[in-house]
């Protein structure tokens, strides 16, 4: 093949690759884009058909969900609207952060034991933990509701944190276990020969070397807990409900506040985005350790 043909072929292939990338990218991100535009449109613009891609943006939606808009009540007194968004964020943070911390406290030692020790029925235990992820929450939600109301745990942070373990724990145990199994046993044996205890080895060898797995597991656990809707909706009232459920409150009997719902979606996703960016560093650094020969 002569040079000219080859260069032509290369350009064509490159162009095609870009087109494919742009198309898939657009397809995947379109809903996000649309919701974002919805959050900054005026109500008529949201509902207009054909859909408007060019419009005058407004931040009224965000102001409303943050409780910055003032309304005049029946008595003529002006007050700020209640911010379901901020209440939801507060609840989400409390429940999800504590849930994830709890699953780390339980899951990390569990992962280590499953990786290193030879106990009877080890694989059965491991699989049981994983199976929590298989069951759709819908399956257990009604029994849990009945159980929790009976023992007085309805509408408490504790019940949500407890139930969220079903989501977070398997994630952490399975991912971190894999990373810990990758650590050569001889690094730990070297520490034993150097005179250290298993506890020291757990904290100073196993955990640091499984950093990437812990970051990955934490991030996934956080995302799945944060995004959970059903547990919060059934097992709690508005006082305790996380931001995912609070979004529903903008679907009022008077009006469906599309813009505000869109705004709260964007707002609810923001903490996740920030966390991912922060943890990304650990995900990458964990992959570049070459101390053991290869």
């Amino acid at each position, binding site marked *: 093949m002569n040079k000219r043909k080859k260069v032509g072929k290369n350009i064509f292939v490159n162009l095609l690759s870009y087109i494919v990338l742009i198309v898939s990218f657009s397809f995947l991100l379109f809903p996000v884009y649309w919701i974002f535009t919805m959050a900054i449109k005026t109500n008529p613009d949201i509902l207009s058909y054909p859909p408007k891609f060019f419009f005058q943006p407004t931040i009224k939606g965000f102001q409303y969900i943050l409780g910055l808009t003032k309304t005049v009540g029946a008595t003529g007194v002006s007050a700020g609207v209640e911010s379901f968004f901020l209440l939801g964020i507060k609840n989400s943070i409390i429940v999800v952060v504590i849930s994830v911390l709890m699953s780390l406290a339980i899951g990390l030692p569990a992962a280590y034991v499953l990786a290193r020790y030879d106990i009877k029925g080890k694989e059965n235990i491991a699989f049981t933990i994983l199976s929590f992820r298989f069951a759709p929450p819908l399956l257990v939600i009604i029994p849990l509701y009945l159980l929790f109301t009976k023992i007085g745990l309805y509408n408490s942070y504790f019940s949500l944190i407890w139930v969220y373990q079903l989501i977070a724990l398997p994630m952490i145990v399975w991912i971190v276990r894999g990373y810990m199994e990758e650590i050569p046993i001889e690094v730990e044996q070297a*520490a034993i020969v150097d*005179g250290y205890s298993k506890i020291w080895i757990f904290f100073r060898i196993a955990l640091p070397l499984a950093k990437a797995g812990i970051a990955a597991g934490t991030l996934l656990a956080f995302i799945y807990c944060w995004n959970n809707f059903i547990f919060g909706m059934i097992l709690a009232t508005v006082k305790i409900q996380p931001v995912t459920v609070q979004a529903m409150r903008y679907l009022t009997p008077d009006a469906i506040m599309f813009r505000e719902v869109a705004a709260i979606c964007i707002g609810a996703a923001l903490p996740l985005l920030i966390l991912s960016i922060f943890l990304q560093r650990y995900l990458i650094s964990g992959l570049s350790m070459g101390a053991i020969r290869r």
Partner: protein
Amino acid sequence: MPRISLENVTKKFKELVALNNLSFEIKDGEFFVILGPSGAGKTTFLKVIAGLEIPENGKIYFDGNLINHVATPNRDVALTFENYSLYPHFTVFNNIATPLKSSVQKNKYNKKQIQEKVDKLTKMLSINHLLNRLPSELSGGQKQRVALGRALIKEPQVLLLDEPLAHVDAKIRNQLRTEFHFLKEKFRTTTIYTTHDYKEAISLGDRMMVLNKGGIEQIGIPEIIYNFPKNTKVALAVGWPEINLFDCTVDFENSQLYCPKGDFVFNISSNVLKHLKIYGKSEYIVGIRPHYIGFSDKPSDTYSVKAICGTPEVLDNQLVFFAKVKNLDLNISTHDPDLSLKYEQELWLGFDDQSLIFFDKETNENIKLKE
């Protein structure tokens, strides 16, 4: 630097017998080398001495004290792993300092003393300039020295080195092997060093052991192992090119040996004949090392066996070639790489009968060691 004694030590991994009923002794302060191919049980042996593996059977003593039930941190041993197993997230300094900070050391050293000790040791190992690097930033040879540093820093009574030169570039390996001679003087411990390279074993060991499939083939000083191998396995394990082994029948009347495979005879002295007569048999496996076979381009009394020369190769410092005598291929080597031998040239071979080793055809054992 204790004397280490083993009595009937056996270690199994499910069905596999890794160490088979080992009983022997390593002397106080000795540099003891274990030679064996991969899978022979060398690493398992070191781990059993360290206490990282528990034997199914048998007793281990340090200076007469039973240590089977003593936990690893209390045995005062140090181990370097074949893969170095450095702490990947600690700097070189911390890797080496870590053994001094463990609770077993009972806070013997303060920060300043640790700094001094590490400095001194790393200077000796020529890695003093790498203290702030991470293991991933080091070359194979450098990692090797750090692993050594970590083992030596606590001045253990027993030093265990698992194939320390196995994964280093060929060029550096030879250099480090020579360096080990200098380092040897500075360690004042009983050392067990394992390897699959016979050169390391015979060069470094005060005494050495040939280990095969978990069993001891022979223990002795390197010169004995090389010149008086106990059986054909040991003879093949040391030396390169490999020793030549071929079947022979003794002609007692004519003081000759006849080799059926090559269909040739050669004379042996009355001395050698006497030993064979005493042993009693008439068929043996004869071993002769490649550099003990002499050759000439003309036949004579000394060089009487006709052979065809294979392609000569200069490898390392020897000229090595195959010589074909009918159906028998012999390895021959010489230190004169400037000889001009040609492929398919005719040669006449001579066997120095003082360097012949005779093995019993049934047991494969060296007849000299039976006396």
